[in-house]
Structures are given as C-alpha cells and as structure tokens.
C-alpha cells in the first residue's frame, strides 16, 4: 500500500503551478479580460491553483491560431501525424504516475483508478488512432469507361471540443486523438470543475505539436463554452455532458450549419438473469463485482450501471450477496492506492446526490445500505464523500429514471426475459447496459433487444479503443473510441473525373 504525497508536497511526483493561463498558438497567454477563477480539490475542498477565466475574446484568438495552423497540419502526411500521436503516447507513458496523481487531485477519484484505467486508456487511445489513421483508405469507383470517381478524406478544419469533468484527461483524449489524427486543429474548452490537469499534460507534450494545432481555453460555460460553440469559423463542435446543454449546443451549431457529436448520459440497466447464480463460482463472483460497478468513479460516469434488474428467482440471495460486496468497498484518501472510491467532484454534485437520496426515500424506496454522506475525518472532512448506496424500488420512481451521478444504484426485480427487456428499455436514455447470463443465446438476444449503444455482456466499465461507444435515444449522437470517429472528423471530397475528350451533349 502506498500513499502518494499531494501535488506540491515534499516527495510528491508532481506539482501544480499557482496559476494557469490559456494555451494558444503554442504558448501560454493571459486572458484578455484578466480574470482568473479558483480551482479547489474535492479531496479536501481547498483551492490549489487558479485558472484563466476565458471569454469570447480568448476563444476568438484561439480559433484564429487554430486556423493559422490548420492548412499545414491538414497537409501533413498521415505517417507524420501518426508519429506525433505516438510520441504523445510515449511521453505520457513515461510520466504516467505524475499524470495519475495530478488527475486524482483535480477530480477526486482514487489514484488506483487513474493509474490502472484513466491514464493507460488515454495512452492507448493516441496509439490506436495513430494506427487507424495509417490504415484509412479513400475509395475509387469506376463509373464508366471514361469516368472515375475518386473519394478522399479531408479534414474539417478547426473543431471546437467541450469536455466534461468526470475523466478530464481521458475525455480530452477521446476527443483530441481522432480530431488531430484526422488532420483538424482544435480549440478545447475543459470543464470548469477540472480545468487544470490538462495543463500538467500540456507541460509534457506541448513541444510535440506544431503551434496552433491544439489550443486550450479555460473558463465558464456561459463565458467561454458558448462563444466557442457559436463561433462562425469552427467546422464542428463536439460535446460530452448533460441533455439540455447538448440541445443548446445543437442550436448554436445550427446557426453555422456545422455537424455536432454529443454524448449525453444515461440510466444504464444492469440485468442479471437467474442462471448467473447456478453455481457459486468465479463467474458468480464476477457478477457480484458487476453489480458493484455503479460505484466506479464515485458513480460519476455517464454509463453508470445505476439500475440493477435482478431476476425474481435469485433476487433475495443475489441482492444479499451484492449488498455485502458493496459494503466491502474501501472508502478513504484518494491518494492511497488501496482506496476504491474517492470524492465527488464538487459540492454541488455532492448536494445533488443527497437530494436524490432524499427523493428516493420520499418515493418509498428502501435503503439497503448507505444513503448518507461519509465524513472521512482529518483534512478530508472538507471534501465531498458519499457512502455507496443501494436503493430498492420500482422503475417508475425518479431515482430509477434520472441520472444521479453518484455512487447510488436502484435495484428492482423482473420475472422473465420480456419483463427484463421492457423495464430495461423504459428510460429516456440509451447509452450503456449490462447483461449477465451464462447462456450465450440469452445474452445475445438481450443485447440486441436493449436500445443502447453499448451493451456490456458479462462485464462492465471496459472502454477499450476499437469498441464503438455512444448513445441511442436521448443519450446523444455519434460514436467514440472507434476508427469510425475519423469519419466524424472528416469530410469526403469526390473528384469526378472525365477522361473523355468529347463534349457531353447538353449545350
């Protein structure tokens, strides 16, 4: 067991600066209006840095810088662009521990997760898109003996990307890797709850990218995000976050007729068929862990398996075992490598989770474990901690229909296959789902019947590159983590070429 020193303390593997400006045109520049905002760590609630408070003027400068770099970057060969992404991955890998500790301090999640998941996934993502880009081909269609259609992938130009706070570096990577691979230049606006860890990353990789290819403007959504989404000189906007903001961004994009990809969240059902309990073996143990997955990242995941649907015939036994499993989740200092669940990202998230626990109780749901905040004592008393919570109720309750975005799962039973699918699909969302069954046919059919873009089958919360990820219904538009994203960040140029010397016969 190791306890990492907090950034800046003696012996720490990483430190944060006292202040961060915007990163525009390859250098750090102060905000035009001169404002900064404080950035606390949710681990203790204390401020540890201040960050530039961007406005439309800064966004405009960033877009201009990105435009200036777009021609050359777009014309860079695929081999060279891929080499840049590979070097970024290598540099991150050489500094994995430092980035992991910085990310944990910024977001509140356990360092155990940033070391094992966030950073390795981000590193791999740059390598994946380097490879996908090298393998991408255009197309040729022979129309007739004299006519050939050549199809080329071309970059869009400058793209705007607005990313969330739940996996700051990983979410930035999911957006940046395909956009840069595809030959675009980027203006990225990090979430205001987690504005700083990207700058620790930039400090390590900025020299690998030509100036203006990647620009980072920090600030509040209404002051910096809105001018970016509305900017007349960007060619696409990508967003991960909540539903209403997603709609608003689509509205802004419509002003300039540009494409939008959105990842907007879910209320993912985790379905356990009776046969998972057929034996008390490794697979049953795995299914138990699958139930407890709602606590990963403190529940702050758009695909949190926040509804658990258990088949009636095994309900009592499974839920009993599952609650014990949940009660063994280790809560503690996020920089301890044994801690499994950290701090919620901010006070308002903490308050929102508690308000949902309250409405759950009012609606008559039963608390099987948790249901209260956790005071971890000492310096952690000012942080935002919630005990993993299991509610029992029915699918019409608000706690079964709305994203709580905390370590809270709502459990209900189902009788048969049709009942399971009906309940699973009775939601506005369709991002993730989990299906657990020893029977391959059942698992396959359930996966195809559930209206969700990602159906984990006998697993959960795995996010490898090369597996497409995205939502149905109100969960968004487009897919990530797969080479199809190159298409999302490119346009098709068709050269329709005639090799005939003769007039066509119209005029």
């Amino acid at each position, binding site marked *: 067991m190791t306890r990492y020193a907090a950034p800046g303390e003696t012996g720490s593997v990483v430190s944060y600066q006292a202040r961060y400006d915007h990163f525009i045109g390859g250098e750090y520049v102060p905000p035009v209006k001169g404002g900064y905002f404080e950035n606390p760590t949710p681990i203790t609630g204390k401020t540890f840095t201040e960050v530039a408070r961007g406005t439309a003027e800064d966004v405009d400068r960033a877009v201009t810088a990105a435009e200036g770099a777009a021609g050359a970057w777009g014309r860079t060969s695929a081999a060279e662009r891929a080499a840049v992404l590979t070097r970024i991955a290598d540099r991150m890998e050489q500094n994995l521990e430092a980035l992991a500790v910085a990310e944990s301090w910024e977001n509140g999640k356990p360092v155990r997760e940033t070391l094992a998941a966030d950073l390795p996934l981000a590193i791999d993502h740059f390598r994946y898109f380097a490879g996908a880009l090298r393998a991408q081909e255009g197309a040729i269609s022979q129309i007739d003996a004299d006519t050939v259609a050549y199809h080329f992938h071309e970059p869009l130009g400058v793209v705007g990307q607005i990313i969330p706070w739940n996996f700051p570096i990983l979410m930035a990577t999911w957006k940046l890797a395909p956009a840069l691979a595809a030959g675009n230049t980027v203006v990225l606006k990090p979430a205001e709850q987690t504005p700083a860890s990207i700058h620790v990353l930039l400090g390590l990789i900025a020299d690998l990218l030509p100036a203006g290819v990647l620009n980072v403007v920090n600030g509040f*959504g209404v002051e910096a995000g809105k001018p970016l989404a509305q900017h007349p000189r960007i060619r696409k906007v990508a967003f991960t*976050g*909540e539903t209403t903001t997603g709609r608003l961004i689509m509205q802004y994009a419509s002003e300039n007729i540009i494409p939008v990809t959105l990842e*907007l969240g*879910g209320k993912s059902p985790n379905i356990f068929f009776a046969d998972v309990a057929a034996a008390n073996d490794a697979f049953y143990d795995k299914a138990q862990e699958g139930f407890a997955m709602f606590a990963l990242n403190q529940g702050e995941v758009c695909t949190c398996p926040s509804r658990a649907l258990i088949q009636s015939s095994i309900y009592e036994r499974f839920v009993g075992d599952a609650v014990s499993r949940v009660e063994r989740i280790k809560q503690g200092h996020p920089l301890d490598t044994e801690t499994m669940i950290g701090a919620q990202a*901010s006070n308002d998230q903490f308050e929102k989770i508690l308000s949902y626990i309250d*409405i759950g109780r009012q609606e008559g749901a039963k608390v099987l474990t948790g249901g209260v905040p956790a005071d971890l004592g000492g310096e952690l008393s000012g942080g935002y901690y919630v005990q993993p919570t299991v509610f029992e109720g029915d699918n019409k309750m608000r706690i079964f229909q709305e994203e709580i975005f905390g370590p809270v799962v709502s459990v209900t039973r189902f009788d048969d296959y049709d009942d399971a699918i009906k309940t699973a699909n009775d939601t506005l969302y369709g991002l993730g789902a989990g299906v657990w069954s020893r029977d391959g046919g059942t698992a396959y059919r359930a996966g195809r019947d559930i209206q969700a873009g990602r159906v984990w089958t006998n697993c959960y919360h795995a996010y490898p590159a090369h597996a497409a990820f995205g939502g149905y219904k109100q969960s968004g538009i487009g897919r990530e983590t797969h080479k199809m994203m190159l298409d999302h960040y490119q346009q098709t140029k068709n050269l329709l070429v005639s090799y005939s010397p003769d007039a066509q016969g119209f005029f």
Partner: protein
Amino acid sequence: MSRVDLTEAAAGLLRRLTDQHGPLMFHQSGGCCDGSAPMCYPAGEFRTGRSDVALGQLRVDGVAEPIPVWMSQAQFEYWRHTHLTIDVVSGRGSGFSLEAPEGVRFLIRSRLLTDAELAELADG
C-alpha cells in the same frame, strides 16, 4: 397552486442575474455531469418547442417578468407526481447556466405532491 417554487436564496440570486442578463428562463436538464439540475438562461436563449412543457412561472420580488420553468415532455412524465423547489448551493456547475461564475449552482429539491394537490393541478 404551482408545480414550482423557489427558496429565498434562489430568489436573491435571480434578482442579481436579472440585473446582469435581463429576463430569464429555466430548463431542467436530464443527463450526466451537470444534469439532473435546472439550467438558467436569458429568456429565449434556449429554444423550447413541441417536446417541452412549461411547469410554471416563478414570480420573484424585484424582478418584473415572471421566470418560466421548462422541462422536456418525456421527462415530465416521470416528474409529474413531484413538486419542485429551486434552491442554490455553493459549487462549480457548468453547462452554460448563468450562475456558474458566481460560484454557486441552482439545484432542485423535490417533494411528493399530495393527492389534493394533484387533483387541483389536474383541474387547473
């Protein structure tokens, strides 16, 4: 009676935001991250339409126009048995909600509507 209400703290914040931005509106967001919480925009900034329902109008002392509170129709089907009070907590919300730079975030506190209240709302 109204389906929506607000706390004194929220009213104070809305007076300040109205001074800065003019008439306002709310749309309750579903979804992850900063969702499951009301978004406050300048009136008309967020286009509502056929898929939305107006839950009510907030009347705030010192603010001339009532502030409408909207929600998507689909979401409303799951909320219609609850009463909503808009409150404020300290924090760092995002999305494009107007209060973020103030270091606070709007939040919904809910309670179940009584049978009598549900009947009254059905008639009205």
